[in-house]
């Protein structure tokens, strides 16, 4: 064969196989004849150009022609069994819909690019004081890092800021703000949409009164007026100038995650001479942009070197510090990853199960079509042509299912976004984007191939070769025999295995959730309304004025009907607030103050312990006598008492909370029960309470705690409480008002979200598995009717027949359960970080799941088995 002939044969592969089979040989022989007639090189060239054009024109038309015939055939076949088509399409729509919805969240939260250029070079830098918990750092350390590092293009620091905006004719509004060093937005690589960025000169204690607004705040508060640039604005009773507005597209992840809800930025304005810049004060966060070519490890070593040189210079202020660098993507999106990946894996399994179920339905359908296939094979239709036909049918189902699924996904995505926990970042940006649609299309197509392939292959292998004739002559439904059942049993086994995996996963989450609910927070959150207030203005510049305000407010709230106790605190447990200080015990100096044990500090007023119902264990609580002039006192938590004074009575001992000249030693007067401050799942920390009126620090914000009597809804007091505050000072805004139950429930939001979704997926999975098993077994019983009739005629009783059917059904179930347990144990790591109080291989969860699956499967087998046993042998034999 000449080279030219070979090329021609290769070119013909563009045509459909069917067409080649019909006309290929003729076309080749014709091409050879044309070659003989073509004169010389020019003739050959002309022939080839014409031939190429011809095949390229013809091939797509021929493929389309086959497709349109297959499509109309497929639609006719499906219309003949509408119930089957509907069941398939709906199963698929659910599978693809759930998948696409979860993927849209995964895409929006984890996969979408961050709103910063070269975001992979951005890192957060935390200080690790060798206690295993990297945290905030101080301005002094930041200043040293900034001047001594060699690995970053820029570094910036940020700290929280609460801004109460006032303008003539407008309501007072409190917004969350961020104080940043002037390089902050330059480090992130974003510039204001309007006005100017901060300059080095703005970042000074004396001229730092300028702000940048978020696009949202600018639209809400200033009606998107471009003229606001350069205008004054009163914040916390001080006049600031608006320097610029940040772009709308900037959904600022760093500020937003470190200081939730932040909408306004102002320069930090620190110098190392200021008191908050003390070496041991650690309350700012640091971000940096890595210099090109510098690796994370190099930069981390560089920053650690700076910290260690500080530790050598100031050994009493640093223990053995190290820098911990984390890419911002990992730091801010990382925590959401396990939850989303778990859910994604779960819906993936669900879709796989939907495929297996549909394949099972189609297998039953296929066995009814053996005759049709045999006839078409006998007429010379090639197996590949038939395979193509069957795949077209499953594609039609997949495409319709995918289309409905996408509509479901758009709806489900909205529900997920509206109900998702705040802990998942960027949830509000989630939408059904082009990439999500592509995902839906690709998953529909893959699904169609997966579930269409199995029945088609089985059919073709059944009627291949000599068997075709057998099928035609006897028209037997041979798939009910061992081979047909084998295919279905495999699918049943897969379904059972996958649903076992999902059930174990949701079972573990349920156990964790219940365990967490049972954790005693150390106080009683039921029946408590919290009202967070922040005072601003010159009239609250001194501690006595602030204390007097809160005393009056507490007394006024306590007189509301139904209120049993009112307290106030600077630090609310379980809200994520952190106010930890080093403790020095009198007579036990710390070798290095930086290594002193730390305690959560609460400045409390009024009946705090009664309002929270934190029990007194020893000594006494605070009284009205523990005022500003009285000897300083402190009440400590049980764990702190036991660990720091093991076997001793701490009452009467004296401790100092943090250093400082105005911070005298305090006498321990009482021991109270521990409170879970940082989270129900975290260990108890040390706790120290002091009367806020004796506090050495000025703090203008406090949370009021209003406890109501049994059976009363604390939220019902909200309006009245607001009125009482207005009556005392109408200028002061309430930052937030919510019941303590809401706080606890928000804390559990991510767990609840994951749990509800996973449990729903697992329930659906079990249902799919059971329906699949029932369907397959029912079909087998119908097909074995004759055999069962013979057995009954030969003396088998009802119990024998039932056993026969149940054993057949339960065999793949047993294998499926075993497989599921193994997969679940192997995949345990995926879920381990979400568990509390149970291990990923919790025996009880495994046991309950195994029993539940086995029982449901037995029920699914029982119904067809009973039907088989009830058959009249005479009728069975005649069938």
């Amino acid at each position: 064969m000449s080279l030219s002939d070979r090329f021609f044969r290769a070119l013909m592969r563009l045509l459909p196989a069917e067409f080649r089979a019909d006309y290929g040989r003729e076309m080749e022989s014709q091409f050879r004849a044309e070659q003989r007639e073509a004169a010389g090189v020019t003739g050959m060239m002309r022939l080839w150009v014409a031939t190429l054009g011809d095949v390229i024109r013809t091939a797509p038309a021929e493929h389309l022609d086959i497709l349109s015939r297959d499509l109309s055939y497929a639609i006719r076949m499906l219309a003949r069994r509408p119930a089957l088509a509907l069941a398939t399409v709906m199963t698929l729509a659910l599978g693809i819909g759930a998948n696409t919805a979860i993927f849209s969240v995964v895409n929006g939260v984890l996969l979408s690019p961050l709103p910063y250029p070269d975001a992979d070079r951005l890192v957060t830098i935390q200080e690790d004081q060798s206690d295993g918990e990297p945290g905030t750092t101080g301005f002094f350390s930041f200043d040293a890092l900034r001047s001594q590092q060699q690995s970053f293009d820029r570094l910036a620091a940020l700290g929280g800021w609460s801004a109460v905006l006032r303008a003539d004719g407008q309501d007072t509004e409190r917004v969350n703000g961020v104080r940043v060093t002037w390089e902050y937005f330059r480090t992130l690589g974003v510039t204001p949409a309007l006005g100017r960025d901060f300059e080095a000169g703005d970042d000074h204690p004396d001229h730092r009164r300028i702000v940048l607004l978020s696009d949202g705040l600018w639209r809400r508060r200033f009606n998107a007026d471009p003229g606001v640039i350069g205008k004054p604005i009163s914040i916390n009773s001080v006049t600031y100038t608006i320097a610029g507005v940040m772009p709308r597209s900037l959904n600022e992840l760093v500020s937003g995650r470190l200081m939730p809800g932040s909408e306004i930025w102002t320069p930090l304005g620190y110098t190392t001479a200021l008191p908050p810049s003390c070496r041991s004060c650690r309350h700012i966060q640091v971000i940096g942009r890595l210099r090109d070519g510098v690796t994370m490890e190099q930069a981390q070593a560089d920053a650690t070197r700076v910290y260690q040189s500080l530790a050598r210079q100031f050994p009493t202020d640093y223990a053995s510090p190290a820098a911990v660098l984390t890419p911002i993507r990992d730091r801010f999106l990382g925590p959401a990853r396990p939850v989303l990946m778990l859910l994604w894996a779960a819906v993936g399994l669900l879709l796989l199960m939907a495929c297996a179920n549909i394949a099972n339905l189609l297998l039953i359908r296929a066995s009814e079509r053996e005759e049709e296939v045999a006839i078409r094979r006998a007429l010379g239709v090639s197996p590949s042509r038939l395979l193509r036909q069957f795949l077209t049918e499953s594609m039609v189902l997949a495409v319709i299912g995918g289309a409905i699924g996408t509509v479901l996904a758009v709806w489900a995505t909205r529900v997920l976004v509206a109900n998702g926990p705040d802990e998942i970042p960027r949830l509000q940006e989630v939408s059904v984007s082009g990439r999500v649609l592509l995902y839906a299309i690709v998953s529909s197509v893959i699904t169609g191939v997966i579930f269409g392939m199995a029945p088609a292959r089985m059919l073709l292998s059944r009627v291949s070769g000599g068997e075709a004739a057998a099928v035609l002559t006897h028209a037997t439904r041979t798939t009910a025999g061992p081979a047909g059942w084998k295919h279905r049993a495999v699918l049943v086994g897969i379904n059972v295995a996958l649903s076992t995996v999902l059930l174990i996963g949701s079972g573990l989450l349920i156990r964790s959730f219940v365990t967490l609910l049972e954790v005693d927070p150390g106080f009683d959150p039921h029946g408590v309304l919290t009202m967070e207030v922040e005072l601003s203005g010159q009239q609250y510049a001194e501690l006595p004025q602030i204390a007097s305000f809160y005393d009056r407010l507490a007394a006024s709230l306590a007189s509301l009907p139904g209120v049993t106790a009112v307290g106030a605190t600077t630090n609310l447990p379980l809200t994520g607030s952190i106010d930890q200080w080093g403790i020095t015990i009198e007579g036990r100096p710390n070798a290095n103050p930086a290594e002193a044990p730390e305690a959560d500090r609460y400045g409390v007023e009024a009946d705090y312990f009664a309002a929270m119902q934190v029990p007194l264990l020893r000594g006494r609580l605070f009284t009205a006598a523990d005022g500003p002039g009285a000897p300083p006192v402190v009440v400590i938590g049980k764990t702190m008492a036991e660990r720091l004074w093991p076997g001793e009575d701490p009452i009467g001992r004296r401790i100092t909370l943090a250093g400082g000249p105005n911070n005298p030693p305090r006498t321990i007067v009482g021991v109270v029960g521990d409170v879970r401050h940082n989270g129900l799942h975290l260990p108890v920390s040390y706790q120290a309470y002091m009367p806020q009126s004796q506090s050495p620090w000025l703090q203008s914000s406090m949370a009021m705690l209003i406890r109501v009597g049994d059976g009363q809804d604390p939220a019902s007091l909200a309006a009245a409480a607001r009125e009482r505050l207005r009556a005392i000072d109408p200028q002061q805004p309430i930052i937030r008002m919510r019941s303590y139950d809401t706080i606890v429930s928000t804390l559990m939001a991510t767990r609840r979200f994951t749990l509800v979704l996973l449990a729903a997926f697992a329930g659906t999975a079990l249902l799919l598995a059971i329906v699949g098993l029932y369907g397959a077994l029912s079909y087998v019983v119908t097909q074995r009717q004759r055999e069962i009739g013979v057995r009954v005629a030969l003396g088998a009783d009802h119990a024998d027949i039932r056993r026969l059917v149940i054993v057949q059904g339960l065999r793949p179930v047993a294998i499926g359960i075993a497989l599921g347990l193994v997969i679940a144990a192997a995949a345990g790591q995926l879920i381990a970080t979400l568990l509390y109080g149970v291990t990923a291989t919790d025996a009880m969860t495994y046991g309950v799941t195994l029993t539940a699956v086995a029982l449901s499967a037995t029920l699914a087998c029982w119904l067809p088995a009973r039907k088989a046993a009830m058959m009249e042998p005479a009728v069975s034999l005649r069938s």
Partner: protein
Amino acid sequence: MLQVLLALADGEKHGYAIIKEVARRTGGKVVLRAGTLYAVIKRFVDDGLLEESDERPDPALDDERRRYYRLSDRGRKVAVAESERLAATLKQARVKLFGRS
């Protein structure tokens, strides 16, 4: 398309002969290529305009890879109808464009 039917009007032919006949009849203006030809043949066979002939010429003259096609009765009717339609169109064109019938 009609050219293929016309090429077969005077008897059965194999594919290559059809191409030759069409080229000859049109003075080389219409040269069918294999892909186009067999796509047309396939459609005409499916639609019942052409039939594959079982009769083969003298084996000495025949290449056994070749398949012969002939017009079916239906194909002949279609060819006639299409020719008449074209003739009528031509007649109208003559009247409209050249002012004669």
